[in-house]
């Protein structure tokens, strides 16, 4: 692979660096929500084809992550959290990252179409294009609302999983999309409150940097309301059973309590931002448990 385009890179990248480009940690949630979408679909899918569909979702997410790192290597080098990534750390040249990302994107979409159907492949390609062009290139550096609209990119997996099994998209997968879409702002803004200086140094117009901490805290509280409403909607509309309904109510009550605490407080220098870190950590658990409850509900009650 060419290593001559970046004078800081003299050695070929290790395979681990290509793996790191795919953001494997972020991929866990993507794969899990995609798998849940596939498992709760009314039509069972052949296990091999189901495995391939989840693999394609993971590869597509990896491709989007690689292209994101290719485009943002200048930003990543300015932030402590991301400075160790292969491109800003000088372990890989940009052209290799671009070729890897584009190749993986095409591979994932083509394999999805061959293994499952055109609808799943189309939604997968839309999710990759949305993340790269709408979020990374267009919104992220321009507007503090970047994460609100960009959150849609991470909301596609359950729709793709559902489409892979059924070949269509109905109300339930759209509600699952809406849950992740509305969950992303409070999840990400909780993070951005305690890594604010990182974003400010890099010039990323994250809400706490542009509008201040108070506005961000209010927005976290405000976004929690529609998120909770949409999370409970599948049960309220009769699309799931009481197992999911009970889990959704309990999880949203905890989320709302943690979000209210973050929303109503003001940080003091040196206070460690514990409530914000707790909300961020719980938000990840929340999504895992909510989607897990959905699958459990489907298996036990079969609504």
């Amino acid at each position: 692979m060419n290593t001559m385009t970046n004078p800081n890179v003299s050695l070929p990248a290790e395979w681990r660096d290509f793996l790191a480009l795919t953001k494997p940690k972020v991929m866990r949630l993507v794969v899990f929500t995609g798998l849940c979408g596939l498992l709760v679909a009314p039509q069972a899918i052949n296990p091999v084809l189901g495995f391939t569909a989840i693999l394609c979702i993971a590869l597509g997410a990896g491709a989007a992550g690689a292209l994101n790192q290719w485009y943002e290597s200048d930003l990543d080098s300015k932030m402590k959290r991301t400075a160790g990534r292969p491109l800003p750390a000088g372990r890989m040249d940009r052209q290799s990252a671009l070729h890897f990302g584009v190749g993986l994107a095409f591979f994932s979409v083509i394999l999805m179409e061959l293994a499952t159907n055109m609808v799943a492949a189309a939604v997968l390609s839309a999710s990759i294009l949305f993340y790269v062009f709408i979020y990374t290139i267009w919104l992220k550096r321009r507007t503090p609302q970047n994460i609100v609209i960009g959150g849609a990119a991470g909301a596609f997996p359950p729709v793709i999983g559902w489409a892979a099994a059924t070949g269509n998209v109905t109300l339930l997968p759209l509600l699952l999309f809406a849950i992740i879409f509305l969950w992303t702002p409070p999840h990400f803004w909780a993070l951005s409150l305690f890594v604010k200086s990182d974003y400010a140094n890099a010039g990323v117009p994250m809400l706490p940097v542009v509008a201040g901490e108070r506005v961000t805290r209010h927005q976290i509280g405000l976004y929690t309301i529609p998120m909770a409403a949409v999370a409970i909607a599948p049960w309220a509309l009769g699309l799931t059973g009481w197992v999911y309904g009970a889990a959704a109510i309990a999880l949203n009550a905890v989320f709302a309590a943690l979000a209210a605490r973050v929303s109503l407080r003001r940080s003091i220098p040196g206070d460690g931002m514990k409530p914000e870190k707790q909300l961020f950590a719980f938000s990840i658990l929340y999504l895992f448990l909510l989607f897990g409850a959905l699958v459990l509900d489907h298996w036990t009650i079969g609504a």
Partner: protein
Amino acid sequence: MTPEEEQVVRERQRARAKVMAWLLGAFVVLVFAISIAKMQLGG
């Protein structure tokens, strides 16, 4: 390039080639399994 650097380059190339070989092997198995699954479905 110093002999040490050349050694590192070779090691990395060898490791990447090994990973690529495993991935290609896995892909062949996967395509075979997909073909069988599709045939069972009559697709």
